[in-house]
């Protein structure tokens, strides 16, 4: 495997609130190879978005990266100053957000918002920046980009706005894009269009993707590898086919089992009992233990160690799902 674009090692991001320390991300490690798509899956509050923002260096107080390392193309990002991070953001590292209705500034025209993205990192004339913006819009499939450029965000549909956001993210051909549930707010038709578009564009430009989502169907169609997060930790990761076909962690197993498409019609859908624990008060052992059907006495003793398999397969469980049950 080539040198990874992104190597996150033992990352911990904690929020120091009045009610105590919330360990949103606690010891997360993964790598992303050039051009690779990593699906980061988890429920709300599992720490997947915080992981994304940590990589971008956009964690605001009371949150802070307390330990670990984030290397982008071999260069350490943790501990950089704001100005140093600013030079990276938008250029070699870009981000797409969840709600396209909120990410574009409602009172600024599309051209302003695109040209400033170009000019933030390159000293080019307004005209050159505008040309780049036109190209970028055309690239993401917006018809008559020249005219659409002088429109305001509210004149665009949700799907169009997300295309604009993607165009802005791609404008400097970054090595890595972090996409934080970018299709969640869109309807299914637009969602599949955007997915296909992003996949194509990233393949063309060799951009790696970290696709944060809670939708396993999206991951199955898009990602090369998948990492499943639960309560601030990655509980299982590996190649997407391996993990989805034969989950080892009971949580992954439960997630896959609760997708309606897999179940027999008329049969009761499998579910994971209980709800995500509060990150401020995690159980001493495995965080999933209280909800786990396979929990044994030793699960409560301490956090399960990371078990390594072949082809980058890793999981945190001392009593993994056996093969015959997973199938």
């Amino acid at each position: 495997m080539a040198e990874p674009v992104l190597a996150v090692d033992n990352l911990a991001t904690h929020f120091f609130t009045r009610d105590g320390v919330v360990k949103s991300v606690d010891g997360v490690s993964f790598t992303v190879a050039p051009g690779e798509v990593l699906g980061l899956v988890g429920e709300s509050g599992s720490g997947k978005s915080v992981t994304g923002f940590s990589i971008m260096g956009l964690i605001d107080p009371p949150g802070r990266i307390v330990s670990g390392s984030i290397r982008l193309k071999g260069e350490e990002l943790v501990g950089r100053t704001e100005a140093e991070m600013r030079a990276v953001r938008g250029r070699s590292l870009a981000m797409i957000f969840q709600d396209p209705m909120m990410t574009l500034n409602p009172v600024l025209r599309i051209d302003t918002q695109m040209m400033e993205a170009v000019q933030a990192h390159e000293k080019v004339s307004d005209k050159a920046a505008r040309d780049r913006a036109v190209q970028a819009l055309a690239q993401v499939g917006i018809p008559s980009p020249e005219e659409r450029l002088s429109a305001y965000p509210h004149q665009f549909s949700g799907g169009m706005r997300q295309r604009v956001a993607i165009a802005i993210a791609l404008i400097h051909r970054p090595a890595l894009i972090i996409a934080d549930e970018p299709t969640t707010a869109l309807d299914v038709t637009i969602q599949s269009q955007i997915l296909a578009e992003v996949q194509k564009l990233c393949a063309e430009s060799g951009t790696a993707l970290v696709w944060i989502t809670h939708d396993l169907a999206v991951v199955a169609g898009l990602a090369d590898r998948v990492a499943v997060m639960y309560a601030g930790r990655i509980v299982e990761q590996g190649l997407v086919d391996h993990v989805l076909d034969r989950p080892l962690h009971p949580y992954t197993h439960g997630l896959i089992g609760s997708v309606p498409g897999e179940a027999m019609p008329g049969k009761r859908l499998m579910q994971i009992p209980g709800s995500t624990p509060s990150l401020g008060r995690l159980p001493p052992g495995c965080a999933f233990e209280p909800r786990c059907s396979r929990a044994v006495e030793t699960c409560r003793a301490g956090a399960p160690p990371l078990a390594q398999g072949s082809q980058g397969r890793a999981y945190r469980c001392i009593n993994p799902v056996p093969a015959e049950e997973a199938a």
Partner: protein
Amino acid sequence: MLAFVIRRLAQAFFVVVAMVVLVFFGTYVIGDPVWMMVPGDATQEQVEEVRRTFGFDQPVYMQFLTFLGDVLRGEFGRSYVHGSSAIGLILDRMPATLELALAALVLAIVIGLPLGLFAGLKPDHPASRGIMAVSILGFSLPTFWVGLMLIMLFSVMLGWLPATGRGPTMVILGIETSLFSLEGWRHLFLPALNLALLKISLVIRLTRSGAREASLQDYVKFARAKGLSPRRIIGVHILKNIMIPIVTVLGLEFGSLVAFSVVTETIFAWPGMGKLLLEAIQRLDRPLIVGYVMVVVLLFVTINLIVDILYSALDPRVRLTGSQS
């Protein structure tokens, strides 16, 4: 847009008519202006004479109809006290008041906006807490008291600035103004600051809450993710969003700056409309009061119109239409 303006002007017309009717009959009820106009030892005949001259012997509806007739002929009545055209008197004094109000508005923006931005972007900074504490004082201290204190400090104790009057004025484009001489500015500064104090506090609070709200929005995070400098994010992305409520409120407040500069003008002996109104009310000078109300109502309506137009310039989602929406 044109339909919108026409509609607004029609509304304005009715507001002016309603205000004039109210004020006309209101001042009629308050008292008989004749007693303010004749000397104390005047005989009954002299009093009746004055009554007839000014038409006070007519029933009130006749007086009103006469007044309306005058208005239609472009004659808004003569001041009982000054004997000259009421509107003329008001317009003579208006530049002084507008100048004061404008200076106060500029002070409110120049001082309030940066302080509010700072307090909003760094809410936990000790200076921010200081700013907010001072802004509470700005809200709660009475204008007249602050005016007196300003005079005491800057004029009496330090002797830096003159306490009263407008200083030398120049006629520029037919308008008398003191904005073009240093001496004029020296006279203007204290009353303008006094008048602005409340508005500075208002702008600080508005800007602060706007900035706090805006800085949490996704578009700010996205702008940061683009690698923009804080200067651009604050100066363009945040500021343009928070200008919408600020412009609205300041527009409305400008009207009240003009209308309620009475106190400041009295303390600093500023020869503006407010002082004129105060004298008019004391002497029951009805044409002057009615004229003043008309001018102020028109001013308010004009300002509101300008604010609405500015609004659509600031917020692209607002489109001005003739119909109600």
